[in-house]
């Protein structure tokens, strides 16, 4: 008689149960995880907590009562017409900035991808505004768009009155044009990288089938860079929703009369200047939710099945 003896299951150590089969992987990813938790997740969760409490900044060790106040901070924030208006302003900004960014950066990247001469010079030229400090670039735009600036001199009687930056109709579009121009170099680089991934054979096939340059652009280039387009849409929407420096500097704190104030500018005023971080946090939470919704919609409609 023979007896079959099954190998007993190997004992699994407690440490291995927790750390998994490749603990080194956890170790390698830990720095980034800690970064994400410390710099994004923790502040986000903390700001949500702040938005539901009567909160103000205090010195360490100072006893302050911070009771739960439910939706009071949200009501305070959104009963303020300036806050509502700032969301409308940033909506106008995104409607101009995001499509303009996508179209211009794709067109310019396609052009840069084809030209032979001055390619490096032009790529650098488009990238320079992106890496230049906003403060310096804003000064140039102030000179350009002031009442007696170059733009109005060229336009002559066609110049708007009041001038661009103090015109409640034109202030926000001017900021949108400025940001589009400033950020364009970065998005052109994204598209240039994506264009390298489109097989040349596709263009040759299209040409064989009788497609001209415009038809090739819409039938080969545009579908070929779709993942990059989704990325450009998402990044430009997120950065646009965080608009702060331009209304702070270009239109003197969201002027004229709040026409270019953005939610982040209002958050800065309320949270840091006016000692209402709880109300500012409520505005921030709503902004995050709205940006997430817009990003999901963009991903749904522009991202396709990918």
């Amino acid at each position, binding site marked *: 008689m023979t007896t079959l003896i099954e190998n007993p299951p190997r004992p699994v150590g407690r440490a291995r149960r927790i750390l998994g089969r490749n603990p080194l992987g956890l170790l390698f990813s830990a720095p980034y995880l*800690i970064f994400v938790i410390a710099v994004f997740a923790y502040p986000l969760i903390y700001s949500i907590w702040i938005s539901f409490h009567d909160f*103000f900044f205090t*010195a360490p060790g100072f006893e302050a009562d911070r009771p739960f106040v439910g939706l009071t901070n949200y009501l305070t924030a959104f009963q303020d017409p300036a806050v509502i208006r700032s969301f409308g302003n940033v909506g106008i900004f995104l409607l101009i900035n995001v499509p303009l960014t996508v179209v211009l950066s794709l067109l310019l990247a396609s052009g840069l991808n084809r030209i032979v001469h001055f390619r490096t010079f032009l790529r650098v030229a488009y990238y320079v505004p992106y890496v230049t400090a906003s403060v310096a670039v804003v000064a140039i735009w*102030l000179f350009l768009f002031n009442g007696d600036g170059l733009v109005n001199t060229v336009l002559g009687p066609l110049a708007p009155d009041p001038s661009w930056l103090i015109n409640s109709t034109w202030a926000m579009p001017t900021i949108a044009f400025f940001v589009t121009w400033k950020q364009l170099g970065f998005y052109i680089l994204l598209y240039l990288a994506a264009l390298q991934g489109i097989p040349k054979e596709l263009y040759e096939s299209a040409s064989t089938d009788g497609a001209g340059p415009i038809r090739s652009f819409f039938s080969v280039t545009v579908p070929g860079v779709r993942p990059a387009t989704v990325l450009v849409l998402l990044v430009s929407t997120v950065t646009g929703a965080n608009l702060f420096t331009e209304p702070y500097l270009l239109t003197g704190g969201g002027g004229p009369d709040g026409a270019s104030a953005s939610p982040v500018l209002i958050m800065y005023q309320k949270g840091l200047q006016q000692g209402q971080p709880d109300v500012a946090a409520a505005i921030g939470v709503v902004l995050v939710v709205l940006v997430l919704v817009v990003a999901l919609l963009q991903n749904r409609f522009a991202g396709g099945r990918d």
Partner: protein
Amino acid sequence: MKKRRAVAAAALIVGALALTACSRGGSGGSPDDHGPITIWYSNNEQEVAWGKQMVEAWNAEHPDEKVTGQEIPAGRSSEEVIGAAITAGNAPCLIYNTAPSAVGQFEKAGGLVDISSLPDGAEYIEDRSGELSTQYQNADGDYFQIPWKSNPVVIFYNKDIFEKAGLDPDDPQLSTYADFLAASKTVVEKGGADYAIWPAPTSEFFQMQFDFYPLYAAQTGGKLVVEDGKATFDDSAGDGVGEFWSTLYADGLAGQEKYTGDAFGDGKAAMAIVGPWAVSVYDGVNWGSVPVPTHDGIPADETYTFSDAKNIGFYTACVNQGTAWDVAKFSTSLEQDEKLLETTGQMPLRADLLDTFPDYFAANPAYAEFGDQAARTVDVPAGPNTVQMLQAFRDEWSQSVIFGGKDVTQALADAAAKIDDIAKQP
């Protein structure tokens, strides 16, 4: 697998929270503690020079209580830097650049030492600053700031532009609203200036201190914009000031756009509202000065204006608070105040300034007007909601006075109603 990931993630979160909690503790000092301290002062050239000599003078006499002085770290504004330092618990003992508009918030945050709680605190402040000191008390009559220096604002005018426009540069007739408007029209039409005056038309809360407030203080004989928790400016005096500025903007005599340089220094504006710092800054301009205008014109020695003061904050993060209080008194002594005058041209917040430093004002007549004016100044309302109030005012002012989108009287009434509500908040 899921459980394992959850445990690992929880461990990381706990680790991250522990890391982010590693901030330095705050208060713990006592007025009896003596030893080394750190102070911050403003980063403009003159104040740095004054700060350095003051620290040197103190250290020479107190080797065991060494003071380390440094410029206030760079940030969007000093108030934000100080607010962050309070929250982080690493504020220095004294900051010689504390804006009265931020003091209420810093007090609410538990960041400031109650000077009145020191045995000789309130007495020292009131002996030095006299009646001017009372506007720096909180609602309970306590001092959470040491009144230090003011920059009373007046009107500077460019004598060359006035002369070119056919106006008498030595008697420019700017004391009443009507005279001021007439002179403004003339200097723009004939003097070659783009604008008569060009205060910043931007939306920051503090800009009202340099257009509305000086004229309102002058018109009312020194009324604060908020007194006893109620806005005061919804009256004929406030309306008058509003209409005056509204006319300047509507008639193109004041600039609605932000100027990127110095409009007065560049000759783009014929006049400016400035403090004594302007004496050295406009060395190359042939300027004259007059008090801010009122409706009917009042003598210069009765005219009030905005103080534009910066005070000394004494912060609770300070360990050696005994030394800090001694340094605060040393730096506001007669000797150091005279050095402040000589080095910066800014006015120590002292009672009887002209009589206290007669030699300085005799030798520097350009500053004498500011020295006299320093006795009649008003500052921003006290309390934790000052900035909120000033921003509410500025928003209404921008809409109505600067851009003409609302009736001025209605805008001031609306601003007053908002401020009354804000004043009720804790």
